[in-house]
């Protein structure tokens, strides 16, 4: 296994939300996995899904964002064990596993108007027919690059931490229309 120096940590950029339509999620551990020609399970993550789908649960899932690219999200503190498990399962293959847990912020968008709120800034069709449960994709919300995942009761928006005040402000302002 690689030596991983202790990472510098800054305070979360958004306080954890208390519910409502737009609610920032607690910190999480995340990895970007790049791997070619693989289909199956590694480190407890199901990597067999098609492009633009996510497999797992709301707090622990693998979202396939490109033909050879996955975003792995899991609860904070479980990253080290997952990294070891992934490295064990993928031994002998060429892959890149980068910890990006501190780079991203997760925001939950829930309720009957969740898709309407997101569509104020996202040009993709997010209806049940076009973006059903288990969908995930990178796209653009307003001016910010985001990942949208639909697992569990609503949508999860992942953006870089420097975009988080913009993204959460954008969504909170739109959500006032539906409050």
């Amino acid at each position, binding site marked *: 296994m690689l030596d991983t120096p202790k990472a510098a940590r800054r305070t979360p950029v958004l306080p954890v939300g208390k519910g409502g339509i737009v609610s920032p999620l607690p910190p999480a551990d995340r990895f970007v996995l790049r791997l070619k020609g693989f289909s199956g399970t590694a480190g407890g993550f199901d990597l067999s899904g098609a*492009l*633009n789908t996510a497999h797992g649960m709301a707090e622990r899932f693998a979202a396939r*964002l490109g033909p050879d690219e996955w975003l792995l999200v899991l609860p904070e503190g479980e990253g080290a064990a997952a990294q070891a498990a992934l490295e064990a399962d993928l031994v002998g293959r060429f892959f890149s596993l980068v910890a990006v847990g501190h780079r991203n912020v997760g925001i939950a968008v829930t309720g009957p108007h969740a898709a309407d709120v997101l569509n104020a800034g996202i*040009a993709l069709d997010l209806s049940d027919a076009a973006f059903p449960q288990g969908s995930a994709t990178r796209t653009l919300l307003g001016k910010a*690059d985001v990942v949208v995942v639909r697992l569990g009761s609503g949508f999860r928006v992942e953006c870089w931490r420097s975009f988080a005040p913009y993204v959460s402000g954008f969504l909170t302002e739109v959500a006032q229309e539906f409050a």
Partner: protein
Amino acid sequence: MLLVPCPYCGPRPEVEFHCGGEAHIARPADPNALDDAQWAEYLFVRTSNKGVHAERWLHSHGCGRWFNALRNTVSDSFLASYEMGQPRPALPTEGGK
């Protein structure tokens, strides 16, 4: 909004993409063998046709992949998209163009 067909993701909104200019421009195998005019031709000279045009596109706010597409520069309609490295497909709808 214009929909761009990504060969990996399907039709997606135009704002997720960047256009990378004309496709199928091969880098000369031996640049040292070219004179300045020939090198400038490779670097700068592009077709600017009215009709079907082969272009490179990047799905930057999506799957992150480069691909090639045939677009009609008059109507802005996309006629085909295909993976990098594949030859330009023949189009029955080109209408003699």
